[in-house]
């Protein structure tokens, strides 16, 4: 194993534990909703988005129409648009690996590759980024599949397991809060969504909420820090 491969592996260990556990929860939930085991690797290879796959189980089991499926995917994953913007420069010159690096840009992968890679020699970086993306993808596929297999071998009451998604968003929210100085976006996002929920009801509030957040962020004037 080369130095950069080993370095990538060591750095992905925290994601490995997280992905195995979260993927496992997804697999259990998928199986508990009556889907076959092989759907777990199929979904984790092709969709490869943690939170979205939990939402997907709900959408698939109620047979939601494709428009709803598309809009929901857009809303849940819209934040990925902005990961790309900050990776534009880093992924330059990664050659034929670039499409896969972009495809595999999940929250957790982003949190690893957005950091400084000064400890890796420039000529090794494309291999290093590829290893991070590939290892994480493997952990996710393994976790999801193991969960589904376990779910088909042992039956247990999985009622309430969907809370994993709520808990995950709460922890990401806290991380974001800590890593930013200005909390206007977080507070505004929560307030606007809550107001839309009351105004439009739990079936129709997401699109107006998303729209209002976008508009409010666009017209938001940031204080220019002097010094």
């Amino acid at each position, binding site marked *: 194993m080369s130095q950069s491969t080993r370095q990538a592996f060591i750095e992905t260990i925290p994601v490995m*534990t*997280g992905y195995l*556990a979260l993927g496992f*929860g997804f697999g259990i939930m998928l199986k508990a*909703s*009556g*889907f*076959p085991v092989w*759907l777990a690797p199929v979904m984790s290879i*092709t*969709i*490869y*988005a943690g*939170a979205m796959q939990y939402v*997907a189980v709900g*959408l*698939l089991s109620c*047979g939601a129409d*494709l428009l709803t*499926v598309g809009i929901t*995917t*857009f809303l849940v*994953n*819209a*934040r*990925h*648009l*902005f*990961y*790309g*913007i900050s990776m*534009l420069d880093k992924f330059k010159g990664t050659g034929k690996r670039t499409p896969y690096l*972009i495809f595999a840009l999940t929250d957790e992968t982003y949190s690893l590759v957005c950091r400084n890679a000064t400890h890796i020699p420039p000529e090794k970086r494309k291999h290093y980024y590829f290893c991070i993306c590939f290892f994480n993808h493997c952990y996710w596929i393994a976790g999801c599949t193991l969960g589904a297999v376990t779910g088909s071998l042992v039956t247990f*009451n*999985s009622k*309430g*397991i969907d*809370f994993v998604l*709520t*808990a*995950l968003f*709460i*922890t990401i929210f806290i991380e*974001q809060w800590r890593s930013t100085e200005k909390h206007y*976006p*977080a*507070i*505004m*996002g*929560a307030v*606007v*969504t809550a107001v839309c*929920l009351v105004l439009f009801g*739990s079936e129709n509030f997401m699109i107006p909420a*998303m729209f209002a*957040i*976008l508009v409010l*962020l*666009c017209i938001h004037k*940031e204080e220019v820090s002097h010094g």
Partner: protein
Amino acid sequence: MVNAHTFYAIAVMALITALLRFLPFLIFKGKASTPKLVEKLGRLLPSAVIAMLVVYCLKDMNFSAMSNYLPTLIAGLLTGVLHVWKGNTLLSVISGTMCYMLLVQYVF
């Protein structure tokens, strides 16, 4: 349970997820700098969207009966407090979920 619709739905989810990840690269390919507004949204939107998703997860809470809000409230608080205290995502998520499952299965 699995039919043609399942595959169409998975294809739509996979395509839109990939599209969202590829779009910035397709739009700004070869451009020297990203527009100011896009750069601003790139910094501010993630926090706002995560806040929106937290509210989205709490949308089915209602205050007509204790069992409709207490499990979410208790497990949510446990997740938040643990995370502020220890900062370990896995610990917070697993503890919160186990707490919620125990509450909805045995208590309420």
